[in-house]
């Protein structure tokens, strides 16, 4: 498998893992976000609804109390007594000692004439006739009447409460002016936060209390019109581009509407904090998932790569050994087929030689030439015979023996074959033998063939003027292995070629110089003997062959 394939696989694993872990994470995040939002909205709406109800109750309670207070006075005192201003002053003082909200108190008969008055505007009001006033007619029909707020002579906001009393067939009206500061206070209690507002409008959408932001008393509020509300409403509405949460609740008597507004943003700060925390946790989770996925995938693909590498390595070995086996068979087959013709050529040449010896041809002119020819033919037959026998050995491993041998001794013997050649080419062979090498049981001829092949190759590689080192030692990690290291300072082997050098018929030499079988035969021999040949090479620096021979070589 290629590098690209692994990268693609890695990306796939990352994508799938991220998909399966991030989708639930984001779903959870989104669910929490919306649940939290709606819960918070509900809570906010609910608390505003409660606030509105609560203020409405307070307002109604306050006004009902004033009405019943007036009723009590009217019911418990006779008209005559109350029409007496001295007595009325007493009553008024008693009322004021309990509550400062009463400003004045007056008695009006059924014709609308002021009969008695206690308060700051005695002269002005005593002469007023109310017969044509709307409230006068209203109080006579409903029994109790509460007016809208107005600015009186003192320019202070107040309103009127009037109750009708029927006593001994006489109809009369008790009227009181009430300071609306208390109502303002109750309403102001609903002005929440920095941007929240609360106010009362009447049915004509005129402000009855002073709002914080939404206009001035007794004008139209600079806000949405809730004056026609018939029941409690709480909703978020957009006004002048701002989302605002409104609550509007009608008050029965007087016929007003309490409006409370709230800036959701202010309340939302808490929600935003929660969202922020959630986002941080989510981001952290995503970060962890990504890091974890990438790291795990990387570890996994690395492991896969290693496995693949090991696999291809062992596959290479299998291919190499099966290649060797197939080639061995082929080589043996070819050698066998060639041996027969070789035999015949050799015999024919021999026969000719015999004939030359026995007859008078010796005296002929070309006798020397014939003789030379036959000798050359015989020499070439012998050469071919050596090749075919070597091929057969490669294929069949014939004539193996088992002896107790000293590797140093074998190397020394091998070098004697090659010393002349090396000397001739000005190549120095340095040796460094480990004298403590144990003797081992193996096939000395085959081992010698291996050494011969490799050292011969080294001489050819160096060519002219160079060095070859031959060393023996026992493997430090595995004392059962004897190592023979043969290094040269020749031109080295390129990366492309190094994998092929053990292939049969692979050679860099000219066709008449080498068969390309030496190293493959050596490789086969060492595998057969339970050892191994490894090669290290650097172009321009030289090549090193390391041959390991097992001490307990019991094969063959």
């Amino acid at each position, binding site marked *: 498998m290629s590098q690209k394939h692994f990268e693609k696989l890695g990306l796939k694993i990352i994508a799938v893992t991220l998909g399966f872990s991030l989708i639930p994470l984001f779903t959870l995040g989104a669910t929490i976000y919306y649940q939290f939002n709606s819960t918070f909205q509900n809570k906010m709406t609910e608390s505003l609804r409660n606030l509105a109800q609560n203020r409405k109750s307070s307002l109604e309670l306050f006004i009902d109390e004033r009405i019943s207070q007036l009723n009590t006075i009217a019911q418990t005192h006779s008209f005559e007594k109350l029409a007496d201003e001295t007595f009325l002053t007493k009553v008024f003082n008693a009322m004021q000692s309990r509550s400062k909200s009463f400003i004045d108190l007056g008695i009006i008969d059924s014709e609308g004439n002021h009969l008695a008055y206690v308060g700051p505007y005695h002269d002005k009001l005593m002469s007023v006739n109310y017969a044509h006033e709307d409230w006068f007619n209203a109080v006579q029909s409903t029994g109790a009447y509460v007016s809208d707020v107005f600015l009186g002579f003192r320019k202070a906001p107040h309103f009127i409460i009037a109750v009708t009393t029927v006593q001994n067939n006489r109809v009369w009206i008790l009227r009181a002016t009430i300071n609306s500061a208390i109502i303002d206070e109750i309403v102001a209690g609903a002005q929440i936060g920095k941007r929240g507002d609360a106010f009362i409008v009447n049915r004509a959408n005129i402000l009855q209390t002073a709002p914080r932001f939404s206009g001035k008393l007794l004008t139209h509020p600079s806000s949405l019109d809730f004056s026609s509300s018939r029941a409690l409403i709480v909703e978020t509405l957009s006004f002048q581009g701002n989302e605002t949460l409104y609550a509007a609740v009608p008050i029965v008597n007087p016929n007003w509407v309490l409006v409370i507004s709230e800036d959701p943003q202010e309340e939302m700060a808490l929600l935003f904090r929660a969202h922020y925390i959630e986002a941080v946790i989510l981001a952290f989770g995503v970060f962890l998932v990504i890091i974890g996925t990438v790291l795990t995938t990387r570890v996994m693909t690395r492991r896969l790569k290693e496995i693949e590498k090991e696999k291809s390595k062992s596959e290479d070995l299998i291919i190499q050994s099966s290649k060797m086996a197939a080639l061995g068979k082929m080589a043996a087959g070819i050698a*066998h087929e060639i041996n*027969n013709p070789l*035999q015949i050529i050799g*015999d*024919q040449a021999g026969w000719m030689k015999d004939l030359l010896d*026995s007859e008078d041809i010796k005296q002929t002119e070309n006798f020397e030439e014939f003789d030379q020819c036959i000798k050359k033919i015989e020499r070439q*037959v*012998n050469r071919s015979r050596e090749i075919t026998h070597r091929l057969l*050995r490669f294929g*069949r491993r014939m004539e193996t023996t088992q002896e107790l041998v000293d590797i140093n001794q074998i190397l020394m013997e091998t070098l004697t074959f090659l010393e002349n050649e090396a000397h001739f080419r000005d190549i120095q062979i340095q040796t460094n033998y480990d004298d403590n090498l144990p003797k081992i049981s193996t096939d000395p001829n085959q081992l010698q063939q291996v050494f011969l092949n490799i050292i011969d190759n080294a001489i050819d590689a160096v060519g002219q003027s160079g060095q070859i080192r031959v060393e023996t030692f026992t493997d430090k990690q595995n004392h059962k292995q004897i190592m023979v290291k043969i290094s040269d300072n020749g031109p080295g082997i390129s990366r492309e070629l190094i994998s092929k050098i053990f292939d049969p018929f692979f050679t860099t030499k000219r066709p008449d110089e080498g068969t390309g079988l030496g190293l493959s035969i050596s490789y086969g021999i060492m595998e057969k003997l339970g050892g191994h040949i490894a090669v290290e090479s650097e172009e321009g620096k030289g090549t090193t062959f390391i041959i390991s021979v097992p001490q307990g070589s019991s094969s063959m």
Partner: protein
Amino acid sequence: MDRFKVIVIDDEVDFVDTMVKRLKDKGLESYGAMNGPDGLELVESKDPDVVVLDVKMPKMSGIEVLREIKKKKPLTEVIMLTGHGSVEAGIQGLQLGAYNYVMKPVPFNELLNLIVQAYDRKLIEQERGV
């Protein structure tokens, strides 16, 4: 050298012809056959001292021919020629009573030496048998 009888059995015509010619030249009475059955016939009619026998032949393998020879003429010595270079065929031959085995191509002088040695052994065996 005694003039003794040698039969060469091999499916290679040129090999058989040359061998027979050269053996005759060395003063031996020699015959050739191209396959097992012909060879066996020849062995029966000529009663040779030594047979040079190729292992790998069509019709009848060298090993079978060797068996037949040893059955009919137990004293005849047989030298096996293996083109295979296989130890097994040679060893099998030895087990069946062949004198020796040799791998092709073999120089004529070597083969001649072997033939003479085989004949010598035959003489010793004959004496012992008598």
